[in-house]
């Protein structure tokens, strides 16, 4: 006798179709929950492996139109499983009086899982700005505020704000000029001996001309002079010259300007003795 399939089988499938669908969804939910837990555990582990190297400042420089472009970089290691994508950086450079001196930013990057990247950031600083004037002659510590915006593992947007202190070396650190008493000259003018010294503590080579102008109380020019200066970073300068002025002018102060093909910087004025 030939066997036939049990007549109840199709009926059972039909009878319990909704039940099986419900069970399938329950099991699917359980599997998804387990997958989510594994995902979260690996995200937590990977995120704990992220390492950030502080910015190096200034690593290099270029100057033009009084704007010094400090080329810094941020190193980020992401040895975990998930990417940091997209990922961008904004850096604010603040003076020691919390005045904004420069803003640098990067286009959005991607740091893949298991990789590391060095992200260059250009930080332009206007050396001719009032905030930068004291920085030309004084070494100090500046503050950088770094904002990092990105999305980790495609699901977690993150915003990081980091404040770092960075040393600043002034290009004319310790600028000191001594103007001696006026010496009468045969032609009736007064010769003021003028001595100047400073150290270039920046990473900017000082190549240019220091122009000085002796002024009267009304601001009129009594006399001018100049000194050619070439100093590499870290070198000190000490030199002098004489400035000839008419006594009737009433010289009271001296203005200094550093000129080079790339920049013109007004240095702090000094009163004459």
């Amino acid at each position: 006798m030939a066997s036939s399939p049990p007549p109840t089988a199709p009926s059972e499938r039909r009878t319990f179709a909704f039940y099986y669908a419900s069970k399938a969804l329950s099991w699917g939910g359980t599997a998804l929950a387990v997958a989510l837990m594994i995902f979260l555990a690996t995200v937590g582990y990977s995120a704990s492996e992220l390492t950030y190297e502080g910015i190096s400042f200034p690593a290099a420089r270029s100057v033009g139109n009084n704007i010094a472009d400090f080329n810094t970089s941020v190193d980020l290691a992401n040895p975990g499983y998930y990417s940091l994508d997209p990922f961008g950086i904004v850096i604010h450079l603040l003076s020691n009086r919390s005045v904004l001196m420069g803003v640098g930013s990067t286009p959005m990057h991607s740091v893949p899982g298991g990789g590391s990247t060095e992200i260059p950031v250009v930080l332009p600083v206007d050396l001719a700005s009032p905030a930068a004037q004291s920085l030309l002659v004084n070494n100090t510590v500046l503050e950088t505020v770094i904002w990092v915006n990105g999305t980790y593992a495609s699901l977690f947007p993150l915003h990081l704000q980091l404040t770092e202190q960075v040393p600043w070396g002034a290009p004319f650190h310790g600028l000191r000029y001594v103007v001696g008493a006026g010496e009468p000259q045969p032609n009736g003018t007064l010769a003021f001996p003028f001595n100047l010294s400073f150290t270039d503590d920046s990473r900017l080579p000082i190549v240019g001309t220091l122009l000085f102008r002796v002024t009267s109380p009304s601001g009129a020019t009594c006399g001018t002079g100049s000194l050619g200066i070439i100093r590499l970073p870290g070198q000190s300068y000490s030199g002098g010259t004489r400035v000839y002025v008419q006594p009737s002018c009433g010289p009271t102060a001296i203005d200094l300007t550093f000129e080079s093909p790339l920049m013109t910087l007004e240095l702090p004025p000094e009163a004459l003795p």
Partner: protein
Amino acid sequence: MTEGSFRPNYRLPNRIQRMRGAVALFILYAIVLVAVPLVVIHFVATYGVSVSLPLLLIVGGGAAIAVLSSWAEYRKPTSGYGPLRMVASGATLVYVLALVYFASISFQGTVEGHPIALNVGYAGLLYLIAILPLLGLLSGLFLTLQDRSYPGKRLLKDYPVR
């Protein structure tokens, strides 16, 4: 076969057994959804990590889900099971979506001498988690349809005689 020797091919748990199961589930949910989050929030706060979740939402939402889920478990042998699972899953879905508005963790402190402020959002994760109650909602819907179409038949599967 006489009427007196009839044996149903499923065996329902008695009321005490169902009550025990429901209470156990309630305790489990209360621990996972209320106690653990409160302890974790308190613990990470000592390290300067702020989880901006309203405690009332955690306690209220977690307790509501625990009550509805355990009540559904208690009513498992009845036709009210499917609708109750839908209600419990719906409440869970609303709860998870409500958490989306507060889905950020922030940290303010000092790391290796540098002041640092970190904010991490996890709304995307919550949307992913919301799939779970959504599946539960659909599962409850199918259970409801099952019980409407074939009343009592589900008991053969849920409580088979071993």
